[in-house]
C-alpha cells in the first residue's frame, strides 16, 4: 500500500528573487518502508519534508499522504491528518522543557482529544520501545542529547501514525549517540513503522532500504 506519493511537487518561496527549493520531485513510499532522502545542506531536504508531512502545501504538483490530497485539504483537515496519521522527529528535538519525558511523549497525543490517562499509558509504552522507561519521570532539561532525541522519537510514534518523518535526527548528536538513534529507528521499522529519514550523512542513508538523492531541489537518483 502506498502511504505517500509525490507527483512533480514544486515549492517556490516568493521574494526577490523567488527561491525554488523543490523543483519537480516525484516519489512514492510504501507502507513498512524505511527510506532515506539524502542531500547536501541547502538542497531542499527540509522543505521537501515539510511538504511530505503535511506541514506545508506545494506551489504545484500533488502530495498524496495517507490517501489524502494535501493540496486540497483545509487547514483544519490538515491539522487532523497531522494529529492522527503523521509523526515528525526534528534535529533540535523540540521537547517542552517544563515537562518530564513521559509528559513530552504523551503530548504527541494531546491534539487527538483522548483522555490523559490513555495518553499516559501509551506514552509509557512508547518510552519502553525506545529503551527509556527508566528516565520516564526526568525533566526534559535533565536528559542528554541522545535521550532527548529518543523521547522525541517516542513522541512521534506514540500514536502509531501511518508514517514517521525524521529531519536530520542525528544531526545534533555525536556518532555513538547517532548510531543508537539509528538502531532504534531500524527496530521501529522492523516492528512495522514506515519511516522517511532526511539526512546529509552517508551512514544514515546506508541504514535505510532505499536512498533518494536530492541536489538543488531535484531528485538525481
Amino acid at each position: 500500500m502506498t502511504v505517500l506519493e509525490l507527483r512533480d511537487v514544486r515549492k517556490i518561496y516568493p521574494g526577490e528573487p523567488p527561491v525554488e527549493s523543490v523543483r519537480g520531485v516525484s516519489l512514492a513510499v510504501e507502507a513498512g518502508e524505511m527510506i532515506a532522502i539524502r542531500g547536501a545542506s541547502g538542497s531542499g531536504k527540509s522543505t521537501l519534508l515539510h511538504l511530505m508531512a503535511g506541514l506545508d502545501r506545494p506551489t504545484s504538483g500533488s502530495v498524496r499522504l495517507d490517501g489524502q490530497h494535501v493540496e486540497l485539504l483545509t487547514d483544519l483537515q490538515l491539522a487532523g491528518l497531522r494529529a492522527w496519521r503523521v509523526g515528525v522527529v526534528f534535529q533540535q528535538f523540540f521537547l517542552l522543557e517544563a515537562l518530564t519525558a513521559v509528559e513530552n511523549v504523551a503530548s504527541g497525543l494531546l491534539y487527538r482529544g483522548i483522555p490523559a490517562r490513555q495518553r499516559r499509558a501509551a506514552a509509557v509504552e512508547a518510552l519502553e520501545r525506545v529503551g527509556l522507561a527508566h528516565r520516564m519521570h526526568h525533566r526534559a532539561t535533565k536528559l542528554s542529547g541522545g535521550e532527548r532525541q529518543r523521547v522525541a522519537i517516542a513522541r512521534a510514534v506514540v500514536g502509531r501514525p501511518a508514517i514517521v518523518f525524521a529531519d536530520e535526527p542525528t544531526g545534533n548528536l555525536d556518532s555513538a549517540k547517532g548510531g543508537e538513534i539509528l538502531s532504534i529507528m531500524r527496530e521501529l521499522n522492523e516492528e512495522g513503522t514506515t519511516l522517511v529519514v532526511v539526512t546529509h550523512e552517508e551512514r544514515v542513508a546506508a541504514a535505510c532500504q532505499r536512498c533518494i538523492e536530492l541536489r538543488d531541489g531535484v531528485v538525481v537518483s
Partner: protein
Amino acid sequence: MSGVLQDEKDAVGTRPQIKRSSLRLYDLIPTGTLGLRTRRTRAVLSALGIAIGIASMVAVLGVTRSSESHLLGQLDRLGTNLLTVVNGDDLGGTEVELPATAAPMLRRISGVLAVAPTAQISTARVYRNDQIPTGQTGGLAVRTTDASLLATLQGSLKLGRFLTAADAPVTVLGHDVAKQLGIVRLDAGTRVWLGGHWFTVAGVLDPFTLAPEIDRSALISFAAAKELLDYDGAPSRIYVRTDPDQVTQVADLLAGTANPANSFQVKASRPSDALTAQIAVKQSAGALFLGLGAIALLVGAIGIANVMVISVLERRAEIGLRRTLGATRMHIAAQFLTESLVLSALGGLGGVLIGSGVTVVLAMAQDWGIAIPPAAIGGGFGVAIVSGVFAGLYPAMRAAALSPTDALRTTGG
C-alpha cells in the same frame, strides 16, 4: 448538514475520512499555563501589574463605602431634622441678638417639634480659677440656655446633670470646655470662674457633632445669666427640631418668623448638610482615585500584552511543534489566551485580596464599620478577566497566524 458534505466528498473520491484534531477543555489549563510554570518570575511580575490596578480600585471603593456608611450611620443617628437660626455674626465672630420673642414665635410653626433658645454672652469668659489672667480663654464661650437644649439636640451627659429652671450659679460644660479646663471628674466642690463669679460644675456634656459651638461653651441658666451677668433675655442662636417630613417647609419659614423686621439678616441652616456634603466630597474623591486605579489597570494589561507578545516570539518553536502534533490555529490561540486569562485572573484575585485587606486595615484604624461593596469584588475580578482577554487577544492571534513551517524554521535547521 455535515453529513451531506461528507457524502458529497465521498462521492468525489473514495478517500477515507480524516479524523478531527481536538483539544480537551480539561487539557487547556495545563497547556495554557505551561509557559507560566516555566517562567514564574515573569508571570508573577506581570500579574502584579493587574493586581495593583484591581487592588487600588477595590480599596478605593471599599474605603469610600466604609467611610460613607460611617457618615450615613452618623447622619441616621443624629437626624437631618435639626435646624439652627442665627442673626448673623458681627465682625468679631460674636453672635448678634435675635428678638426676645423669636423662640416662642418659632414654636408656633407647624412641624416644629422642639425649640431651644441660646444666647452667647460675649462679655463673660470662663476660666479654671480666678488666678488665670483674663483674656486667655482659648476660644471658649459662655452661653445661656435652658433645659430644652438637651432635648432639642437629643444630647447626653458625660458626667453629672443638666441645667434645671431653679439653678443659680451652676454651669454645665461642653465637651471641649471640660477637656480644655482639665475637668475629668465631678464632685460637690468642682467650680469654674465664670464672668467674675464662681459657678459649680453640675455636669459635662457628650460632644455634639451637629452643634460643635455647644462643645466649646460653658452653659448657664437664663436666671443666672440675668442675675449675675446682666443678660437682657434675647437669644442669639436657636436650635429647632422639626418633623423629619417637614424640614424644608419649616426651614423656609424660620427667618421670617424669628425676626420679622429684619428677616434677611437671619441665617437658618441645617447642620447635617455639612455631613451630607462630606459624603459627596468623599464620593467625588473616590471617583478620582477610581480613575487612577483604572489607569493602573490599563498599564497592567499593557504589561501582560507586552509579556505575551514576547512569549509568542520566544516560543515560535513550541508553536511549530504543536502544529506538527496536530494543533489547529484555534488551539494555539486558545492556549495563549488561556495563559493571559490565567495571568489576569491571578492578578485579579491578588488585587481583590490586597484591596480588601487595605480596606479592612484602614476601616479598623478609623474605627469605621467594614463595608466592601460586593460589586467592587465581583467587578474588580471581572474587570481583570476582561483586561486579560484584551491583553491576550493580539498575541494569541499572532501566535495562531504563524504557519507551522515558519514557526519551525526560526531556530535554524
